[in-house]
């Protein structure tokens, strides 16, 4: 899988209130890459991640998935790309408190009626070392376990690229290190492309390639 940004600009607001979050960004991500995106708050890191994950469309320029511009794709096709080829991990985990770890991972697969979903969800939890916590609710898990559960949700449908928005932002250094080890293992052993947005230099150091974003420009 190749995600390509060509001369991408992204603006929010209208008229005088218009604000350019991303300017002239050119970037290519492949399955197997391990990239960190660093930069100060408000520099456009998360916007860049959203554009890479087909969650947002550029104001100018093109985002292509395997050579296909995403603005030609319908909402359903973009959803299916996110479901089957791209995994998302968020800083705050965003797990459903009323569902067990297994159910949280299973949820998007269940709604999409993905074949073999239960096995896929259980495998994903096993991959992040949570096989003994499948029946635990988020409130019964530590912060690190919750983030691993969120990673399992992102991995459940075997994506080619995982996009993580400050995945260790809410964790202590040691737990954060373990989460990054998990992502690094996935990249190394399964050739899953990892893109991590972070402020933390130690987290950025896990990546083979580092991208700096400042005032919406990639350097």
């Amino acid at each position, binding site marked *: 899988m190749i995600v390509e940004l060509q001369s991408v600009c992204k603006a929010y607001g209208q008229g005088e209130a218009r604000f350019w979050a991303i300017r002239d960004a050119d970037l290519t991500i492949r399955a197997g890459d391990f990239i960190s995106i660093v930069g100060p708050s408000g520099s456009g890191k*998360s916007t860049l991640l*959203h554009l890479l*994950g087909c*969650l*947002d469309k550029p104001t100018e320029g093109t985002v292509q998935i395997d050579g296909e511009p995403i603005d030609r794709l319908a*909402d*359903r096709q973009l*959803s*299916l*790309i*996110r*479901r*089957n080829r*791209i*995994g*998302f991990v*968020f800083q*705050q985990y*965003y797990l*459903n*408190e*009323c*569902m067990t770890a297994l*159910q949280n991972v299973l*949820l*998007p697969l*269940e*709604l*999409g009626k993905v074949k073999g979903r239960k096995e896929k969800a259980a495998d994903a939890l096993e991959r992040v070392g949570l096989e003994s916590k499948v029946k635990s609710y988020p409130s019964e898990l530590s912060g690190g376990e919750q983030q691993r559960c969120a990673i399992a*949700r*992102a991995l459940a*449908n075997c994506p080619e690229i995982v996009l993580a928005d400050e995945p260790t932002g809410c964790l202590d250094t040691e737990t954060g290190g373990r989460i990054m080890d998990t992502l690094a293992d996935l990249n190394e052993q399964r050739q899953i492309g990892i893109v991590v947005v972070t402020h933390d230099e130690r987290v950025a150091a896990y990546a083979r390639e580092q991208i700096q974003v400042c005032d919406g420009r990639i350097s």
Partner: protein
Amino acid sequence: MVWIIVANVKKRKARLVMTVVGIAIGVATLFALLSLSAGMEGALDREIGGLGAQIILLPEGCPYELTLALMQGADTLEHIPEESLPRIRGVENVRSAVPAVVGRVKVNGQLTSLYGTTEDVLQIKTWGITEFTGAVVGSDVAEKLNLSRGQRITLDLYAQESLEVTKVLEAAGGRDDTFVFVPLAVAQKILGLGSSLSAVLVQVADIDETTQTRFALGRMADIQAVPPSEVFDTLMGLFGSVKQTLILITGIAIVAGILTTMNTMTMAVHERKKDIGILRAVGSTQRDVFGLFVWESLLVSLAGGALGIAMGYVASQFLPRTSGFGLEATPHFSLAYVGICILVAVAVGTVSAIYPAMVAARTQPIRTLREL
């Protein structure tokens, strides 16, 4: 899918209960209405059928009031002269003409419905006797007055008579259970009617010629000939206007149920905006999210429907049995009514979920993620 819905609604148990009860009230009203209407129709059909006649001859006046009076054993102001009987029997196609007088008299000191008739009554009633003498007592009367075969009873109004109970009828679930049947002359004497009749019940020889026979009988002076089916239709028509009001009330209750569910689902969509955004971000399509909310609403509505059917059943047991025209209508239950109520619950669930589910499905994940 069900486990997702259960997990989601578990978060808001109080609201879930209120929504389910809201729907249940509408469905319960509908279920009670259906079962009571059917009970009413059944009771009327049974009573009119129990008269055992294809044509009822009544004195001039409102035929429906007179038929009801006949069924309920109440006296009427107008009467048919007994002398008309031979002429009635002489009309072509009349197989039997059974004279009847009815009224309320004291039987052993207690006010009871009296039915005076001739032995011809055995042609239209299946009492299991070959001779009509003395007093034939309906099962309810026998139970109320503690009567049995061979006992003597005293009948008293304008005159007093003492008769032996020759038969206690088996309970038939109809108006006959509430009458004391005595020979015509005895009844006329006690009721002070001279040689007048309350009605004449006519059976025809050829059922296909009933209409012509009815017109021939209706041409006789001071007599109107009414087919029981017409009485039934008219009385059901009168009941229909009451039913329409009840349907309106039921409709209002169901609309209230729809609005309650719609409100609950809209609130649920608003509160779960973050969850929906995450779902969309991890690959759920608009259709997935739409389906999730529609199914949730459907399950809640079905729970409301099931509770409503149970509530309607219980409520109809406690409603007054005398539901119109002095008829004792027992609620009638059928699987069809359960099916109708379930369908209504499904409709409530679907209609009320469409708008909130559309709002949920249109959620743009990026907007949610930016707000997180």
